[in-house]
């Protein structure tokens, strides 16, 4: 690098670039948040969905599963599990854990009430209806 490229110039590029792109990011964020209601169908977020998300969080489901592809990769994707399996299967599955099959991955028994199971299903149902640009590639997640 030649002599005329001073530290002050490098510093200015840093400050200018950081501010410039952060502003751009804020602008895009504004646009995103404006447009989200059409994609997330928030009018369908019922109390049951809210409670379901709370159960999802307090059982740390994301510590094994992914949801919309984010989380751990130890257990199946659940963003579309409602479409893959349906509500009744989900409830029966959660109730039936752990399978106890030797050497197989095990899911804990959370002792959820019927109401809580319904809430989880409602949350997963709402999640499965989010417009995710057609992700995942197929029903297997």
């Amino acid at each position, binding site marked *: 690098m030649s002599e*005329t490229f*001073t530290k002050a*110039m490098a510093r200015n*590029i840093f400050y200018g670039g950081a501010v*410039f792109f952060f*502003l*751009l990011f804020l602008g895009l964020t504004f*646009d995103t948040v404006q*447009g989200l209601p059409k994609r997330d169908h928030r009018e369908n977020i019922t109390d049951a969905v809210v409670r379901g998300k709370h159960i999802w969080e307090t059982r740390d489901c994301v510590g094994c599963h992914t949801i919309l592809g984010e989380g751990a990769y130890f257990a199946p994707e659940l963003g579309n599990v409602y479409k893959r399996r349906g509500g009744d299967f989900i409830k029966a599955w959660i109730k039936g854990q752990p399978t106890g099959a030797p050497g197989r991955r095990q899911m804990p028994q959370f002792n959820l009430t019927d109401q809580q199971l319904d809430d989880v299903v409602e949350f997963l149902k709402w999640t499965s209806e989010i417009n995710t640009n057609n992700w995942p590639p197929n029903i297997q997640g």
Partner: protein
Amino acid sequence: MAIWFFIFAELLAFGIFFVAYAFARAHNVVLFNESQQHLNITSGAINTLVLITSSYFMVRAVAAIKQNLSRECARWIAAAIGFGGIFLVIKLFEFHAKFADGITLSTNTFYMFYLSLTIFHFMHVILGMVILMAVMLKARSGGYSAENHTGVETGASYWHMVDLLWIILFPLVYVIH
């Protein structure tokens, strides 16, 4: 010079977007052609002339400082900034018309590119004006001379790049069908 590194990075970023545009266009020719007809080519063309003129003023500014004419240099820069301002105003009218039609980034792929590229460029014009402003103030207070005018050339180089990007962007997005 630092600015060349910077300009290179800028051209790279815009370049990738231009290529992406061409790629997306090839897959949606009908949509792009249809949407392009709603753009205001007149205001785009006027803006092209405005920016080229503004760039010319910066050429004069550099020529002036090479003859040690600080005040004249500052005046040419002021003129360049002024024309940058005209560009922004015309562009704002254009954006206003588009937003009034309810067009957003999510309207379709063409408008996504149109808005992204032009807003991104718009912000570069503003940044360029800020840089020119700093250079102008320093020139006015006699901070540059015939021997030492790297700052003026740096500002001019950046401004020419902003101009150049528009000269590519305008035909690419507005004209070529």
